[in-house]
């Protein structure tokens, strides 16, 4: 994909055609990134719209010499992170304050049957804290380097390595307990 930095300058000046062109060029990248964290098409589409809304309301912050795709990736990841945290808080609140019947029926973790038997791995991954889940997915699925992850999340490379280590450890522990739970 050939990206012309001039498009950003025109979009900053309020040129609607340039804004449309930016959305057209970068929406596949944004969709791909958001798909890594969310499983429903509607959620992905809503979040991708949020990303572009944020991008155009803050486009003045982008310097002409700045790496626009990198900046866009940061905005996308931050948007996903905020949404994952909100979802997690909602779920936690529902577990505490939700109807009693629900908590009783959800006592046993329901593992969806999936091709290749990835249900357990998915449940274990979903249970991870977004702080750990995001670097892990960026590393293993998006195949970014530690330096790129650090840049995208605005944290140090050491911090990324620590989070990756903790994520793997937690994932392994969850996998073990889920597999044992399934056997028994």
């Amino acid at each position, binding site marked *: 994909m050939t990206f012309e930095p001039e498009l950003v300058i025109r979009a900053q000046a309020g040129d609607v055609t340039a804004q449309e062109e930016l959305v057209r060029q970068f929406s596949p990248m944004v*969709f791909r990134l958001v798909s890594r964290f969310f499983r429903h098409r509607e959620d992905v*589409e809503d979040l991708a719209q949020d990303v572009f*809304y944020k991008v155009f309301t803050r486009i003045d912050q982008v310097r002409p010499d700045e790496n626009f795709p990198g900046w866009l990736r940061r905005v996308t990841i931050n948007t996903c992170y905020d949404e994952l945290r909100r979802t997690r808080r909602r779920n936690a609140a529902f577990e505490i304050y939700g109807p009693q019947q629900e908590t009783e029926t959800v006592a046993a973790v329901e593992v969806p049957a999936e091709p290749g038997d990835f249900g357990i791995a998915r449940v274990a991954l979903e249970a991870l804290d977004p702080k750990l889940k995001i670097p892990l997915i960026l590393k293993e699925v998006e195949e970014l380097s530690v330096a790129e992850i650090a840049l995208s999340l605005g944290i140090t490379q050491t911090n990324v390595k620590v989070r990756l280590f903790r994520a793997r450890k937690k994932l392994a522990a969850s996998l073990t307990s889920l597999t044992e739970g399934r056997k028994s």
Partner: protein
Amino acid sequence: MNPKNPKLDEFFKSERSRVFEPGPYFVQRVMARLAEQIAAQRENGIWDGVVAGARPVFALAMVLLLGIIAIQLFLPETMPERGPIDAVLAPEQTEGEHLIFTGTEPSNLELEKMIIITEDGQ
């Protein structure tokens, strides 16, 4: 991720292929939403301006208020010795009347007698 866990490797590989593509009208939807939000911002623009404009005025008022309170706290309060009515009436007052009005204790017996005479006279 973990080379010792091939199942997880397979899982991550399968995740790589799970990608949603933007629909044919995605660009239009984004632009419509953007236009909608900008229009909404313009509608609320007047009130945003009022709030934004009032902020420095409130800040200045607060600074002045705090300044006055600080001055009152740190500077000793000085009261005038007499008010304007006292000032007008003072030339017509006798020494006894002055002592009664100001509430000061007479310094000697003669003055005390003078006060008693003044009070009796009234």
